[in-house]
């Protein structure tokens, strides 16, 4: 279903290293390929403090979008005094257009299970959950088969590798809300409650699932942990950018098709877009592109980075490195790991309107800035798009976005303002065309386009 895009030679392969396996649930083949070597090392050589120290040296950061240092999270959970601790692997993959987490679970379930087991040993937890989208049937079936096989072989279960430590891993299918990708919301769902975020601090690492310290990590983070323990922290730190080392799975969509690629963090956006036939070299751009011969930056209008709450970046920011801080600085974020190239046919207002509407509809309703604020932002966008804007709308949009960001409870509402915020920042002239001249340059916003006689 999902294609894994071919990446240039020399790009490291950590998460998808065993992606080519005929049967991903075949334990013997996986062990031959290096699975559970990291767990063995963690149990026999490193111990909990050694694991956390190695991770701290590697600089691994959470792949869920916020990029929180993994070692800090584990240390906080390990040092908080509590009768029980939990590890939760977040494989929900909230963005419906992004299948990276699901693909990882399908192609290499053992890497996630091993990472989960290592995390459990490091923080002294005896129970781990892997949250998967209930619609992802193959991923759940493979995970369950893999957990069964690993338990039988003694890699997880009541006696991990003969050390006397116990780790139970359970798959928990969840579904029904975009917000489940947020860690505190996911914990609420696992507790059987309404999925609403919690105020932080206390972070889940101090008070999470059932009030106990809980490490919530994206499945990609956990899958990288065994590799670090086997190959060493220095080898990992050498990959990607200095501030955020390692690789990340990115769902790219461009004129040449769509797919998933493993990308070192810090790779310029241009190279990522080029994987899906974006503007870089003419030979990349064949395939199912809309119009042949689109080889220049001129055809590319914007790059949507970060999923439904992502930022719209103009082509001249294509050299921005794909990593947490750099993207935040330009008004986008890693988010769900999606990079979508929009060409000249797309209208910025139309795109931002769609994204904001989705975010507003998916708001859980716990806080007013999110419930009402995102809805109002979406309504301002609707006014602009249907050609009845008020002269103060842009100012109102900017003020409202700032207020929502300032009073937000979780990242959902903070980031839901990004499509319009980045649109105003980089595509101001297009917004001005809509508001001041009642015309839509792309000819998309229909009432305006018709009224202005520009229905081309």
């Amino acid at each position, binding site marked *: 279903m999902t294609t894994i895009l071919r990446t240039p030679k020399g790009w490291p392969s950590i998460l998808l290293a065993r992606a080519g396996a005929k049967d991903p649930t075949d334990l013997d083949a996986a062990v031959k390929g290096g699975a559970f070597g990291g767990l063995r090392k963690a149990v026999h050589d490193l111990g909990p403090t050694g694991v956390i120290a190695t991770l701290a040296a590697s600089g691994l950061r959470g792949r869920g979008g916020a990029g929180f240092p993994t070692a800090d999270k584990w240390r906080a959970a390990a040092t908080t005094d509590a009768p029980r601790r939990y590890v939760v692997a977040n494989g929900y993959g909230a963005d419906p257009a992004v299948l990276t987490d699901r693909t990882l679970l399908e192609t290499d379930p053992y890497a996630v299970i091993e990472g989960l087991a290592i995390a459990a040993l490091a923080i002294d937890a005896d129970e781990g959950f892997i949250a998967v989208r209930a619609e992802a049937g193959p991923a759940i079936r493979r995970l369950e088969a893999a957990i069964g096989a690993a338990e039988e072989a003694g890699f997880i279960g009541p006696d991990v590798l003969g050390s006397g430590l116990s780790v139970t891993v359970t798959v928990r299918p969840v*579904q029904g809300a975009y917000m489940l990708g947020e860690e505190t919301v996911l914990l609420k769902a696992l507790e059987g*409650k309404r999925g609403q975020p919690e105020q932080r601090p206390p972070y889940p690492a101090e008070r999470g699932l059932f009030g106990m310290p809980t490490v919530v990590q994206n499945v990609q983070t956990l899958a990288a942990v065994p590799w670090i323990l086997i190959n060493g922290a220095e080898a990992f730190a050498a990959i990607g950018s200095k501030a955020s080392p390692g690789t990340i799975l990115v769902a790219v969509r461009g004129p040449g098709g769509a797919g998933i690629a493993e990308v070192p963090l810090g790779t310029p956006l241009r190279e990522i877009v080029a994987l899906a036939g974006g503007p870089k070299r003419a030979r990349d751009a064949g395939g199912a592109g809309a119009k042949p011969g689109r080889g220049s930056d001129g055809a590319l209008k914007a790059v949507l980075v970060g999923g439904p709450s992502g930022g719209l970046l103009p082509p001249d920011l294509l050299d921005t490195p794909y990593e947490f801080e750099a993207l935040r600085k330009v008004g986008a974020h890693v988010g769900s790991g999606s990079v979508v190239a929009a060409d000249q046919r797309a209208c910025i207002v139309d795109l931002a309107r*769609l994204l904001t509407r989705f975010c507003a509809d998916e708001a859980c*309703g716990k806080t007013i800035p999110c419930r009402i604020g995102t809805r109002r932002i979406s309504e301002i966008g609707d006014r602009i798009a249907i050609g009845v804007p008020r002269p103060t709308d842009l100012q109102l949009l900017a003020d409202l976005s700032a207020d929502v960001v300032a009073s937000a409870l979780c990242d959902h509402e903070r980031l839901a303002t990004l499509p319009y915020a980045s649109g105003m920042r980089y595509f101001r002239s297009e917004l001005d065309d809509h508001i001041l001249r009642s015309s839509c340059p792309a000819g998309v916003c229909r009432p305006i386009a018709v009224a202005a006689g520009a229905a081309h």
Partner: protein
Amino acid sequence: MIRIPGLGIVGGMALTLRRFFEPKATIKYPEVKPDIPHKFRGRLQLLYDEYGALKCETCFQCAQACPIECIDMGGIDTKGRFHVHWGAPETYGERREESALRRSGRTVPDPAYAHFEGIDPDPVDGILEEYDFDPKQMLPILEATQAAYGHLPVAALKRISHATGAWYAMIYGTASYYSHLRFERPDDSTQAAAVADHRPTEATFLSGLDAALAGGRRAGAGSAPGAKPN
């Protein structure tokens, strides 16, 4: 008793005179403000926005916060879900007693909900047994209940509430959050249409994204990348 003619009218006029010299109840409103306790909120009411959607997510945080369980809601929420009233306002007193009883740990008789459609309780009882009456397993319980009945009937939710000890408001708030759980019968076409109108799906977003990238939402869902509007 001696009847004195004219005494009745004197009494009546006395009342009139007394009222005449009493302070007036009428105030000149915008200039003079009435003295209202600062916690007074008038009649609590949920408002509809200009699109006709209720300005409420039915998260039931308010109902969960109310110690005597007297908060109740009705209407269509922003997600297009139909909320069913918990009961008539006249039953608030009973509900108060029920709330106190429930917290004492005893089973509570439930006359306020008798008018909701009856269900065959065996499936839900079996499901509760299977999940050991554990409120932490609420999502699997609700999913299994929906699979058994086709939707989540109020009577079943009440039964789950009684058996697990979780507040009805909590269960309702949970069920109203997840888009795969529904309160309306799947065969009720008018409700289904109204709900579909309000409730966005991931498929809507995906086709919207496809269309937006291909130049216009009206180009239709899933149009080929090369297709241009007009």
